């Protein structure tokens, strides 16, 4: 009998808690200021309450909930679909009695590390409340079409285990480090340069480095993890950057480079164009490299990764930076990108080169 009473009590407590949670998530707290409207919207996103977040979107924005959800959660298997909002900072840029502009800087945890997104949102007063005039990111609907592709792909047949000794095998591609430069930045030694696939077959390339101290001992060993294009097609050049945190350049006697290549199956598609590259200042006054990416093939690129190499007037690589785009590259549809440039180096940048890595969910190789 005692057990039954306890079970009933537990059930009632559970129902109350569920109800309390439901009531809490559905509760709408009107925003009395433009900043609180924006902040409340993103706080709801942070707690995975997208329906609640949508209550802060003004009906006059003409954005339905489904579109709003896609704007927030991402689409087409993009990096945003693997992301979660971590924090939001807001700042009122302009405000009057009925309208305001609020800058929202959101920090997202993604599969490739934290990402920051800055958006200037318009907020309007509706009655006594403020609501966000959410501008949906318009995505052009391409007409149905067939994009012909001269399919170019490399497959590999290796020798079998039962073949004679001395029988030939296909060799790994020849790669060469074209340049190497070592600098110290923010308490880290940074090794950077370029590597080229000098062969006629594609290769999976990695670049490692070992720092040797003045006594000949190893100070550290690191590889260029995502600051390199790992898959290099014939004659393709990739920048690389290897960071050694908490190391001083003055302690380094020499650097031993370890390029490695592996023959892999690969495809020559998709081709991604990098349009309208330019160095400019962003809203906060920092130097950035901007442009647009256009996927010239017919397949979706889910996660594009931009690598930028900066050269001085002697043609030396002085910095390598990268950025992921949290939007998927649909065929023929430009997507903007922005890569940081070190402000202390901006004046020395004589030229730059942008390459694009890509990850596609449906890609076989």
């Amino acid at each position, binding site marked *: 009998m005692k057990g039954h009473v306890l079970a009933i009590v537990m059930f009632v407590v559970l129902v109350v808690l569920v109800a309390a949670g439901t009531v809490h998530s559905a509760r709408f707290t009107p925003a009395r200021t433009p900043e609180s409207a924006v902040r409340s919207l993103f706080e709801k996103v942070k707690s995975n309450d997208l329906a609640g977040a949508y209550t802060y979107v003004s009906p006059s924005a003409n954005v339905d909930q489904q579109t709003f959800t896609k704007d927030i959660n991402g689409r087409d298997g993009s990096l945003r679909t693997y992301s979660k909002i971590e924090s939001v900072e807001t700042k009122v840029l302009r405000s009057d009695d009925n309208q305001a502009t609020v800058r929202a800087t959101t920090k997202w945890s993604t599969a490739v590390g934290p990402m920051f997104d800055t958006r200037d949102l318009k907020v309007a007063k509706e009655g006594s409340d403020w609501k966000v005039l959410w501008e949906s990111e318009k995505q052009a609907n391409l007409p149905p079409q067939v994009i012909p592709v001269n399919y170019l792909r490399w497959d590999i047949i290796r020798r079998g285990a039962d073949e004679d000794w001395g029988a030939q*095998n296909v060799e790994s591609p020849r790669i060469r480090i074209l340049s190497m430069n070592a600098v110290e930045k923010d308490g880290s030694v940074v090794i950077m340069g370029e590597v080229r696939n000098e062969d006629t077959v594609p290769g999976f390339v990695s670049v490692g480095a070992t720092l040797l101290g003045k006594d000949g001992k190893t100070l550290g060993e690191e590889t260029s993890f995502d600051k390199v294009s790992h898959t290099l097609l014939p004659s393709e050049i990739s920048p690389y950057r290897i960071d050694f945190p908490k190391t001083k350049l003055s302690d380094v006697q020499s650097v031993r480079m370890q390029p490695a290549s592996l023959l892999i199956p690969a495809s020559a598609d998709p081709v991604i164009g990098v349009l*309208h590259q330019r160095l400019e200042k962003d809203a906060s006054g920092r130097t950035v490299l901007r442009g647009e990416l256009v996927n010239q093939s017919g397949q979706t690129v889910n996660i594009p990764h931009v690598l930028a190499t900066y050269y001085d007037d002697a043609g030396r690589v002085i910095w390598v930076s990268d950025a992921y785009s949290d939007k998927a590259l649909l065929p023929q549809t430009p997507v903007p990108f922005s890569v940081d440039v070190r402000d202390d180096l901006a004046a020395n940048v004589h030229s730059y080169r942008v390459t694009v890595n890509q990850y596609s969910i449906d890609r076989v190789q």
Partner: protein
Amino acid sequence: MRAPVILTLLLALGGLAAAADLPAPQNVVAGNAVSIPTSGSGSATLYLVGPGHVAKREVKLGEPIELKAEELRVAGRYTVLLSSGEQASFFVTPAKPGEIAFLARPSRVPTAKPGVISGVAFVFDGFRNLVLQPTAVKFELSVQGTNASQTVETKNGIAWTRMNSASKEGAAQFVASVGEVKVNRVVQQTAGEPCNLSMRVAQRTEKGIVVETAPIRDCSGNAVPDGTIVTFSLLDAKGRRTTVDSRIKKGFARAELPNDQGTLSVAAGVVMGNELQVGGGGQ
């Protein structure tokens, strides 16, 4: 367990009692049977100890000992011992060349490079014995009508060579031969850097322009392999740069660029092509 002990003792005794020797056979070639005459009467136990074979059997003294061909396949020193105390040692030499292990490097090589192809041949007989006698090995390299050959004599069973790659691309047949025995390897000769790279505007649309190169060849006229990166760059009037890393497909590269006014250039690696002025009514 007892047999090795007895065998060891017999070998030791055989070494001490050097007086009772069987007539050792001369010029024994691997894979050939041998007959060794014996004297006396009665029976004895035969022990045959070779580099690849050990045997024990009863033999009749006064009759020749028959060593079968399959017992003498491995080249090297053999010892025949009889329990009566007689013994003989002889060498089995490799048979005539019957097999070549041929290492050809690399499997891909650019055209017209001196000394980049290496070949090493290990000459064996039909029983996998390394043929140590000096043997002439002919190395031949041929691709698309070009042919080069060298004959090298083996040293300790090995012959090697270095050869130049031909000026023609293609699958070069690299052959090592000794008499009738031949082994074939393929060395893919690939075109070098592009030469005389040029492009033209192939198409104009509202969205942009399509540019394509002429068929891309190296300075010897070989087609540069498909997949090689060709970079098209457009520097517009506002100083903005557009780049497309295109790939050679079916001999030429093609890219779509925005319809901006500016200077269009093309490059493949360190090789620059022509420049075009595009947009604004000009080309």
